C-alpha cells in the first residue's frame, strides 16, 4: 500500500524541515521579546518620543503674556486626545500580559497626563497659567521616564544559531550545526530507504521475497563508516568541552561574584571595595546578576539547600548547583543588554519561578558605577520605597502555594 509509504515519507520530510529551519530563524530561536511584541514596543517608543515633545510644547507656554494662540490650543487638544488613546492601548497591552505591571502603571500615568494637559488647556485659554503648565510638564515627564524604563527592561535579543553571542555559544553552535548536518543526512538517507522499500516491495501475488540472510560486506560497511564518524565526533568536540568546563583552561581572573541558589531565588554576592568576597563590605543582591561585556567572567556557584541549575540560554551555559560544592563557572557575552537566568534543575514547588535578571554592561566603568551606586543604597537604605525593580519583577502567576 503506497499510502503507508507516503505517511512515513511525509512525516520524515516535515520533521527534517522543522528541525533544520527552527534554530536558524532569528525570530524563533531565543527570539527577542521586542520582536515578538513589536506592536507594543512601538507604542512604548511612540510614548517615549511624543510625550517628551509634548512636554516641550507645553513648557514653551509657561511664560506667555496672555491667552495661548488658537494654534497652540489646538496642539494641546490633539495632545490630550493622543494621551487618552495611549491610555487605552496600554490597558490592552497590560491585559494581554505585556509587561503587565509596568503597562498598568503607564496606563494610569497616561490618563493622569491627559487630565493635566486638559486642565492646562482650559487655563491657558483664559490667560497665563504657569502652575497648570508645570503640572502638565511634570506628568508628561513622568510618563516619558516610565516608558523609557519599560523599554530598557526588555531583554536583548540574540543567541540564534546564526548569531551566537558568547564564546561558549560559538563553539557549541558550531558543533550543533555539524551534528545537525551529520544526523540530518543520516535521517534523510534512512527514511528515504525505508520509504522506497515500503513503496517498491509491497506484497504482490506471484512475486516471492528475496531469500538472503545478509551480507558480510554490507555489515562491515555500515559498522565501520558510522563508527568512524562517531569517533571523529567524539574527538572533535573535546576541545569545546575542555574550554568551557575544565578548570585548567580557565583564565586567571578573580571571581566576579558568588552565586548561591536557594529555594526559590538566586542570592548573589559581589566583592566590595576590598575586592574580597565574604567580607563585611560585600554587595548582596537577589535575582540580579551583573557583569561586563567581552570579559571572561567566573562566578562561584553554590547551593544553600537542594540541587538547582544555573542556566543562561542565550550564552549557552548550564551548571548544576550542588549543596556542599563550590563550582567555578566561566562565561562571557559579546553583547551588552538584559538576559534571563533560569533554574534548570527541579528544586521544589517554586522551581518554575526561579528567575533572575542578568544585566551585561557595555563597559567596566558602567559596571563599577552600578556597583558603587548599589553599595551606597545597601549601606544607607533610603526610607522603604516601592519595591525596587527586579526583586519582585519576576512575573509570578497566581499559583497558590505554601511558603
Amino acid at each position, binding site marked *: 500500500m503506497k499510502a503507508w509509504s507516503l505517511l512515513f515519507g511525509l512525516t520524515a520530510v516535515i520533521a527534517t524541515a522543522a528541525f533544520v529551519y527552527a534554530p536558524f530563524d532569528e525570530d524563533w530561536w531565543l527570539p527577542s521579546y521586542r520582536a515578538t511584541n513589536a506592536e507594543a514596543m512601538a507604542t512604548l517608543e511612540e510614548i517615549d518620543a511624543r510625550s517628551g515633545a509634548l512636554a516641550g510644547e507645553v513648557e514653551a507656554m509657561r511664560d506667555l503674556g496672555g491667552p495661548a494662540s488658537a494654534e497652540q490650543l489646538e496642539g494641546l487638544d490633539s495632545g490630550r486626545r493622543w494621551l487618552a488613546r495611549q491610555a487605552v492601548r496600554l490597558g490592552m497591552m497590560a491585559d494581554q500580559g505585556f509587561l503587565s505591571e509596568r503597562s498598568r502603571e503607564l496606563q494610569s500615568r497616561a490618563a493622569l497626563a491627559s487630565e493635566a494637559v486638559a486642565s492646562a488647556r482650559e487655563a491657558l485659554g483664559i490667560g497665563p497659567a504657569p502652575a497648570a503648565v508645570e503640572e502638565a510638564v511634570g506628568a508628561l515627564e513622568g510618563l516619558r521616564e516610565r516608558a523609557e524604563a519599560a523599554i530598557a527592561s526588555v531583554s536583548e535579543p540574540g543567541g540564534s544559531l546564526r548569531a551566537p553571542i558568547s564564546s561558549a555559544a560559538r563553539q557549541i553552535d558550531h558543533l550543533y550545526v555539524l551534528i545537525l548536518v551529520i544526523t540530518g543526512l543520516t535521517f534523510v538517507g534512512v527514511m528515504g530507504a525505508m520509504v522506497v522499500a515500503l513503496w517498491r516491495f509491497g506484497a504482490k501475488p506471484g512475486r516471492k521475497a528475496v531469500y538472503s540472510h545478509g551480507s558480510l560486506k554490507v555489515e562491515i560497511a555500515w559498522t565501520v563508516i558510522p563508527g568512524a564518524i562517531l569517533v571523529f565526533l567524539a574527538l572533535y568536540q573535546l576541545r569545546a568541552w575542555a574550554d568551557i568546563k575544565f578548570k585548567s583552561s580557565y583564565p586567571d581572573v578573580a571571581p566576579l561574584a558568588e552565586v548561591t541558589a536557594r529555594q526559590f531565588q538566586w542570592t548573589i554576592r559581589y566583592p566590595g571595595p576590598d575586592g574580597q568576597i565574604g567580607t563585611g563590605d560585600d554587595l548582596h543582591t537577589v535575582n540580579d546578576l551583573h557583569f561586563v561585556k567581552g570579559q571572561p567572567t567566573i562566578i562561584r556557584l553554590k547551593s544553600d*539547600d537542594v*540541587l538547582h541549575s544555573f542556566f543562561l540560554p542565550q550564552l549557552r551555559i548550564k551548571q548544576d548547583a550542588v549543596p556542599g560544592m563550590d563550582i567555578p563557572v566561566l562565561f562571557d557575552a559579546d553583547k551588552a543588554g538584559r538576559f534571563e537566568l533560569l533554574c534548570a534543575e527541579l528544586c521544589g514547588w517554586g522551581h518554575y519561578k526561579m528567575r533572575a535578571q542578568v544585566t551585561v554592561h557595555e563597559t567596566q566603568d558602567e559596571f563599577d558605577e552600578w556597583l558603587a551606586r548599589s553599595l551606597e543604597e545597601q549601606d544607607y537604605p533610603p526610607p522603604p520605597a516601592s519595591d525596587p525593580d527586579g526583586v519582585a519583577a519576576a512575573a509570578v502567576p497566581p499559583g497558590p502555594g505554601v511558603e
Partner: protein
Amino acid sequence: MSSEPHHDAPAQGPDLAGPDTGMAPGTIPTSGHAPGHDEHIHPAPRNPLFRYIFSTDHKVIGIQFLFSGLIFFVVGGLLALAIRWQLAWPWSDLPHLSALWDSSAGQMPPEFYNKLVTMHGTIMIFFVIIPILLGAFGNFLIPLMIGARDMAFPTLNMLSYWFMWPAFVLIVFSFFVPGGASEAGWTGYPPLSTAEWSTPGSLNGQTIWLMALLFAGISSMMGSINYITTVLMLRAPGMTLFRLPMTVWGLFITALLQAFALPVLTSALVMQLLDRVAGTNFFSPTGLSVANGPEEVGGGHPLLWQHLFWFYSHPAVYIMILPAMGIVSDVISTFSRKPLFGYKPMVFAIGAIALLGFIVWGHHMFQSGMNPALGATFMLSTMMIALPSAIKTFNWLGTMWGGSIHFTAAMLNAVAFVAMFVIGGLSGIFMAATPTDIHIHDTYFIVAHIHYVLFGGSSFGIFAALYYWFPKMFGRMMNETLGKIHFALSFVFFNGTFFPMHIVGMHAQPRRYADYTGFELFNNEAVIGLNQLMTVCAIGLGLSQLILVSNFVASLVAGRKAGANPWRANTLEWQTGSPPPHYNFERIPTVYHPAYEYSLPEAESDYLPQTEPRPPRAEPLDHIMA
C-alpha cells in the same frame, strides 16, 4: 502427587490440526534435554482461583502482567494529559479535577504539577513499559518460543507478579498521604527527595515512592532470574542459542542487564529510605539545611545518588527497548516474508548495547558537578553506544528491502518503531556531545528524546506485539481495519505531540516547569502556540487509544477465531494451538534451523517452521549471518 502422564487428554482442546502444526517428525533430537522431560506434565488446576488468579502458568501470569500494565498505561496517560493541559493553558481550571487537590479553585497548584510529572514518569517506566515488555511478553513468549512447557521456576514466577501488587497499591496510595505523592521527579534526586520539608511531596510521598519501587524491583529480579535460567536450561532439542528468535534474545539480554543492574538500584533505594527514616546521611552534605530546618550532620554527597541511580537507570532505558527491538525484528521478518537481515550481527549488536550500557551512565550527569574530565570519558562510551543501535536499524531496513511486505497493523507499528527510534537515536547524539548537552540538558529536547525512544520506540513495539500475538494469547483475531486506523491516528498524533518538543527544547524551554510564561524568553506566541498544539495532539493521541481498547475488548469476545498459525510464521509458539494448551506443546518440538527461513526457494510455501527440516536440496545456511 498429581503428576499425570502427558498422554492424558489435554485440558483445553488445542486446535492442532492443519498442515502448519509441527507434528514432530521422527528425527532424533540433536541436543538439549534428557529424555523423560515430557513425563512431568501437570494438568491445569481445576479451581479457578489457582487457574486464573494464583496461577503458576507462565501464560496466565503474562496476561495478568499485560492487563495490569495496560490499566496503569491509562492512569499514566491521564496524568500526562493533566500535565499538557497546564502547559498549554497555564493556571486555567482543569475541568472536573479540582477535587484532586482539595481546593475550591480549579487551578492546579505548582506542587501538584510536580507530582504529575513525577508520577507520570514513574508509572510509565516502572509500572507500564517494564511490566508489559518483560512481565507480559517475556512471560508469555519465552517458554513458547524456546519450546518449553513453562518457566524454570513457576512458583517464583507467580510471586514475581504478586510482588507487583504492593507496589501498585503503594504508588496509588501515595497520592492520599499528607503532603501527597512524591515531587522529586522519576529520578528522585536528593536533597529534594530526602529533606522532609523541601517540598510537600517529600513529607511522606517520597517514602511510599521508595517502597513501591523496592517491591517492583524485587518483582523484576525474580523475573530476571527465571528468564535467564529458562533460556539457558529449557530450550527444546535443537534450539541452539543461535537459533533463538530475536525476541528471546532481546528478553534474555534484558534479563541479564536487569539482574546485574538492579542490585545497585535496590541498595540506592534502601540508602535513600534510611536517609529519610533512620537519620543516615548517605546523600546529605555536611551542614545541609533545607527550608530553614535544623542542620544535618551530613558527610554524604548528593551526587552519589545520581551515580547509583543512573548505574541502574541507564541500563533500564535499554531494558525498555531491547525486548521491543527483538519483537520488531520478528514482526518485520514475518511480514516481509524474508529472513532477518544479519541475524548474528543483530545478536552481537544487542550484546554490545548491553555491555556498553553499563559504562555510559554518566551521560546523565554531564552538568551535575561531576568532574568534567570524567564526563569526557562517558561522552566517548555514549557515542559508541549509538553504533550498535545504528547497525540494528540498517539491518531492519535490509530485511524489508527485497521483501514481500504485508501491511498488517502489527507490521505498521513495527515500521513506525524503526522510524521513530531513528529520530530518538539521532537526537541522542546531540546530547552525547557534551558541549551541546550544556544547552540541551534539562530542556524539552530531553523530553522529546525520551518520548521518541519510549513511546515511538517501546510503545509502538508494544502495539506491534499486541496485534501480532493477540491471536496466540486469546485464540481470536483482532480487527485489522480498526488496528490500522488506530495506528495511523496514533502515529500522526504522536508526532504532533512530541516533535515540537525538540523545537521548544532547542529554544531552551526547561522541563518540569509548571509555568514557563513567567520568562520573557518563552512568553511569546511561538512557544505558547507550539505548546498548545502539542496538547491538542496529546488529547488526540489519548482518544485514539480508545480505538485500541474497544478493538481489544470486542476481539476478545467476538473476534474471528484464529488458527494455530494465522501469520504463517516460523517460530515455535505458532506451531501449537491458539491459545496454547496448559502445557504448551503436545510433544516437545524438535528444532531444525533458525527462525527466519522465509521464502526459501526450495520450500513449497513462503515459510518453513522451525520444526520442519530444511529441504535437502536447499543450499546450506550462511553461517556467518544466520
